[in-house]
């Protein structure tokens, strides 16, 4: 097997102390930012990009891979331990882990998430190792028209599926494409949409837009409605020696494997990202579980499956990224920018032209997974401390690093101004429910799409028919229709499912829900005290009990 020896060579590179250190830094930073609310891997890589130009590309890419995987691990810690009512329930994975932590089984939830992520990450990386070279080998022979088809598929699916509504996603995509058009056009040297400004003639840097949208937009959005008061963290009670009982293991291993099987394929196709994968895994586990009643109250399968699916999908995303140069999530788009900033274009040729780097990257993914497992279980205490950072300082730090990153793109203060303007756009988009991921994907894929479109039309001498009639391209468009239809159907099911789940959860916790249950519509008092609810509930229960006794006689 040729690939095995290439992979071993990659390991030989990746285990050099220098690169091991970068992988270590990557997973550490990645987990830290994954734990911190308000920061994701996309934003971290975007922020670090301009700051790491002086590193050799292999070191930087290995670091970014660590951040990517680490971010996934860290996120689960936050959702399990941070007890913020309402919001975290919108992420389906958070529900079970959070409930488990409240029952004093936080350690088991963290452990099944971490080990599940490791299992899924490793299996999915192995699948990536197997499939990526094959797909790349196939993709080398694709014509420009086929690439146009692939890019259209990515545009439409990302635009239509990564957000709450299709029109909002497409609008976001369009804005990204428009920003991508600003600047001097590559082949003809014509200025487009520069408004005569010199600062815009080089175009607007992708990194700048990403930092603005993810860091500044998010910080402004949170700042506008910052939750005040102490940070409600659920304490982890049990020691780390006894995190998972034999029973927990028995109930976890199948969900891990099923989650991987669901997550990896969904990650490889542009169908809405890890979100859909976690939802599908959750629904599957609920169906297969012998403890159905526990779901919604802290079932370990509901943590193990979705966490595995999430990580497997993250590895799956790397398949189209490395073999076709197609980003299907915001983070993938930023990683493509990272490659580009070192003069490397991900795509079919990558495995040949940059074989050493790619195999070192894949090897470092295996290593990163092991590092994460070793690091995360013992370090959970530190991550809990990190969660307690006072929010004013956290968001002040995010803004400061955003300014630094923006300035470091070209060492010009105009970029800091653009940062603020695009950040304001990010704020408004979040406020009105526009997804930001399609914007980033459009911004990065737009120029690539235009190049391929021109090449294709030049080859076909201007005939549009050839764009669609190429066999591979035609297949792509057919698949696109299926993907969008299936994706939208799944999303609707997911929404309904989540709403039902949230409603049933809220019914047991919130006073509003209690009022809804106790009084009929129209009779509901507009202001009640919890005491009123309690006495009302008690009298009704007493009355019901009386009636029961009555019936028995």
């Amino acid at each position, binding site marked *: 097997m040729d690939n095995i020896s290439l992979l071993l060579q990659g390991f030989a590179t990746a285990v050099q102390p220098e690169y091991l250190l970068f992988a270590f830094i990557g997973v550490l930073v990645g987990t830290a930012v994954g734990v911190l609310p*308000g920061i994701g891997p996309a934003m971290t890589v975007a922020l670090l990009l301009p700051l790491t*130009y*002086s590193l050799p590309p292999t070191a930087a890419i290995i670091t970014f891979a660590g951040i990517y995987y680490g971010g996934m691990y860290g996120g689960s810690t936050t959702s399990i331990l941070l007890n913020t009512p*309402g*919001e*975290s329930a919108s992420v389906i994975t958070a529900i079970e882990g959070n409930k488990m932590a409240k029952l004093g089984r936080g350690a088991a939830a963290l452990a099944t998430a971490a080990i599940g992520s490791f299992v899924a990450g490793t299996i999915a990386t192995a699948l990536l190792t197997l499939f990526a070279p094959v797909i790349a080998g196939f993709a080398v022979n694709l014509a420009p028209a086929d690439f146009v088809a692939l890019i259209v598929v990515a545009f439409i699916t990302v635009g239509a599926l990564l957000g*709450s*509504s299709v*029109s*909002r996603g*497409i*609008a976001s995509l*369009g*804005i990204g*494409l*428009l920003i991508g*058009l600003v600047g001097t*056009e590559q*082949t*003809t040297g*014509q*200025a*487009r*949409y520069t408004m005569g400004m010199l600062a815009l003639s080089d175009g607007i840097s992708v990194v700048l837009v990403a930092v603005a949208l993810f860091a500044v937009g998010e910080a402004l*959005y949170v*700042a*506008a*409605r*910052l*939750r*005040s008061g102490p940070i409600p963290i659920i304490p982890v009670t049990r020691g780390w020696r006894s995190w998972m009982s034999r029973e927990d293991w028995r109930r976890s291993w199948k969900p891990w494997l099923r989650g991987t099987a669901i997550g990896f394929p969904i990650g490889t196709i542009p169908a809405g990202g890890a979100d859909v994968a976690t939802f599908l895994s959750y629904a599957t586990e609920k169906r297969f579980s012998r403890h159905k009643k526990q779901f919604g109250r802290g079932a370990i399968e509901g943590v193990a499956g979705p966490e595995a699916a999430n990580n497997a999908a993250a590895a799956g995303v790397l398949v189209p990224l490395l073999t076709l140069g197609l980003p299907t999530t915001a983070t993938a788009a930023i990683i493509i920018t990272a490659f580009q900033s070192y003069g490397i274009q991900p795509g079919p040729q990558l495995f040949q032209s940059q074989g050493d780097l790619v195999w070192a990257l894949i090897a470092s993914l295996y290593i990163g997974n092991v590092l994460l497992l070793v690091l995360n279980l013992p370090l959970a205490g530190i991550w809990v401390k990190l969660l307690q950072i006072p*929010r*004013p300082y956290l968001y*002040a730090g995010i*803004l*400061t*690093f955003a*300014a*630094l990153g923006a300035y*470091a793109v070209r*060492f010009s*203060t105009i970029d*800091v101004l653009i*940062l*603020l303007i695009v950040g304001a756009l990010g704020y*408004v988009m*979040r406020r*009105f*429910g526009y997804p930001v991921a399609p914007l980033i994907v459009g911004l990065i894929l*737009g120029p690539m799409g*235009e190049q391929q*479109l*021109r090449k294709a*039309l030049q080859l076909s001498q201007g005939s549009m028919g050839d764009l669609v009639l190429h066999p591979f391209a035609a297949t792509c468009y057919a698949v696109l229709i299926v993907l969008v239809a299936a994706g939208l159907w799944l999303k609707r099911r997911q929404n309904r499912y989540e709403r039902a789940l949230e409603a049933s959860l809220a019914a047991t916790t919130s*006073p*509003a829900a209690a009022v809804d249950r106790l009084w009929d519509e129209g009779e509901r008092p*507009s*202001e*009640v005290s*919890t005491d009123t609810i309690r006495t009302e509930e008690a009298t009704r229960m007493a009355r019901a009990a009386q009636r029961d006794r009555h019936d028995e006689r």
Partner: protein
Amino acid sequence: MTTDITPTSGAASPPRRWSGDRIGELVFAALVFGLGLYALIGAFAIRTPAGAQVGPRVFPFLVSALLIGAGVALIFGVLRGRLGQREEGEDIDSSARTDWWTITKLVLLFVGVVLLLDVLGWWLTAALLFGGAALSLGAKKWWIALTAGLVLGIATQILFGEGLGLFLPRGWAFDAWYGPGPLF
């Protein structure tokens, strides 16, 4: 202890009244449409060199069509009462009102960075940005915020500016005292 409870009716019916959110959404939808128009008009302004099979206008036309289409769909959607779902997050209090004063302060801080970065140098600007932002966001003690900012500013200046070789300005005052040479 009294809890405010907004009476919730079973299904989410489309809002009939013109709340601030709905007007804002309409404005943004119109902005998307406007961007599409701008892209269309701007596309005509792009010069096409003779002989090019596919000129630099083709793609802009497609993008403007996309934006105009999405804009029209959005405007009709908002008019019919279909509003977006606000993004949620761990640190967001969904019942709170938008705090415009904090946002104004943060925006002003950024404008300050644009104006002062070259004059004061990165480390001092970062200290002011961090301290100012932390105080705007509700940090209790001003001297902790400013000290933390100063530590962060100097640390990033040394790590990225001197260590990784980024050109971060040290400020007029520092340059006048120390000169342009390397720090270490």
